[in-house]
């Protein structure tokens, strides 16, 4: 078990929803020797089983916001998110931020850093295997570069530029 985990989330069959998995597969080629990689279409509580015991976790996921253009990239630090920004209870499952709060409550060994790099997508619903919409496909290389910069920073803290530099 390495100290860093990359968790790619999404459903490979659902068009843009696969972007986190696609990015993971690409990044894995370069970092497999030093970092653990897990792909999952799960969410919330199920993800807890994967991240417990790691020091740092990078989550690659898609996100769909009404007021954001497809292809834009967001970086979110879940552990420092303000509570009003995540749902306390959903009709079926609980979300990851809330799951982490539970883990902290139970004093589980959760990572000190959990960063999400999310790519705003256009269509995470349509059954189109391995087919991204054009704007999302166009942003994919930059998305991978940002995620790689975060990992480089974690592996060699003083060396590469931060992902925030790349986003600005």
């Amino acid at each position: 078990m390495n100290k860093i985990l990359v968790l790619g989330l999404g459903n490979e069959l659902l068009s843009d929803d696969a972007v986190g998995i696609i990015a993971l597969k690409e990044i894995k080629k370069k970092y497999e020797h030093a970092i653990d990689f897990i792909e999952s279409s799960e969410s919330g509580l199920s993800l807890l089983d994967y991240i417990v015991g790691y020091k740092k976790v990078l989550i690659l996921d898609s996100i769909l916001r009404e007021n954001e253009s497809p292809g834009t990239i967001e970086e979110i630090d879940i552990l420092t998110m303000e509570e009003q920004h995540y749902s306390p209870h959903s009709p079926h499952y609980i979300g990851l931020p809330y799951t982490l709060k539970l883990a902290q409550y139970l004093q589980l060994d959760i990572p000190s850093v959990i960063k999400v790099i999310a790519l705003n997508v256009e269509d995470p619903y349509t059954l189109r295997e391995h087919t991204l919409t054009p704007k999302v496909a166009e942003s994919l290389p930059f998305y991978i570069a940002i995620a790689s910069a975060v990992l480089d920073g974690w592996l060699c803290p003083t060396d590469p530029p931060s992902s925030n530099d790349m986003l600005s």
Partner: protein
Amino acid sequence: MAKRITIDPITRLEGHGKIEIFLDDKGNVENAYLQVPELRGFEQFCIGRPAEELARITPRICGVCPTAHHMASTKALDDLFKVDPPPAAKKIRELFYNIFMLEDHTLHFYFLGGPDFVVGPTAPAAERNILGVLAKVGLEIGGKVIKMRRECRELMTMMAGKVIHPVFGLPGGVSKGVKKEDAEKIQTVAKAGVEFAQFSLKVFEDIVLKNKDYLKLIVGDIYMNKTYSMGMVDNNNHVNYYDGLVRVVDTNGKEFVKFKPRDYAKVVAEHVEPWSYIKFLYLKEVGWKGFVDGQESGVYRVAPMARLNAADGMSTPLAQAEYEKLFKTLGGKPVQLTLATHWARLIEALNAAEVMLKLSQDPEITSDKFRTIPTATPEEGIGIVEAPRGTLFHHYKTDKNGMITDCNLIVATQNNSAVMNMGIQKAAKALIKDGNVNEGILNLIELTYRAYDPCHACGTHSLPGNYPIEVNIYDATKTLVKTIKK
């Protein structure tokens, strides 16, 4: 002034449900609907693919109950390739499936349905969650829940390769046997599972059944619908999640029909409404009479309470004692109280743990004869299992090369779609008066469908910024006059 209320979880993955409530001029409920986009044409997606791939493709319908789809698909492939798995393979599959049932039911009680009762149905949303549950039952219980789930998931990974998308079910058996040391690990978890399920039933009794207000809610008319009940049973008419015949009892508890998976299309039919993506299942012989209760209406339901109604008992002693207690407490069979589903779910969790223990101690479970190689030309196959949420049907047809030409999937939520609509309408009419709607009332309405644990993976992937429930109130001119978010 007529108003329209929408309860719309804002989600982005694996379907979602939306409740729309229409008020009349006096502010009372005229009608209410639950709309569910569920499968997104997955059946069409399967056409043209090799049949044997479906056991790996269909679990990707969603991230909620892939194990149920994997197992229903695997059984459909047995039927399709006309191959009977060896006894050990059947036992291995059933063992695996009961681990899944224990894990899933435990999750629902503590994290999803339980907060409504353990914390309180009208408690503020910020408290009505697992942390609120732990505040009532004790912090150490949270650790036990997490541990039980993790251990079940580790066992499933050990047996089936992947916990989220299992890969071990093959036509004619399984890809991997169970080693003696693996069986011993399963026994250890099963014993803990039995104890934990018993503890959970005690929690339910102490916190829910001994609370007069909660009990009143459970047995009250608001959450009662008289329907037929469906569930799979073994040779003794005991509840079985993996295999058997499907039994339906009527509104009086009398057997209406017991059928083989092959005959499902003779028994159930699908009704379509223009306002929902989901189809509404009903009993063909009784007929579709609309969203109405009673013996003359073909509406039926599935899920734990319906399964207990459809069976004559449980297959294990501890669960059987709890089964008898439930029906004695709630006035005999059938129980038509939707909220009793939470109690039934815990009884099933106990049953699943006992079955786990029994099968893991069976000497045949470690047999190396766990696959029969199919040799027949595939044509048509049907597989049925009981998903945690209810009866799940997979039906495939192929050409002579085994490529899928037709695919029909009926998931538990579709079976329950009519009764969920009826329940929501009944609760809304009883609880919303003179246009007065607040968060507590909306949660009381949501209790109706939450009991069924419908397969909407709501709000899970959506990280920040989104609220899971939004209520919009419109006046007669369709102008938005009020929004409630929670």
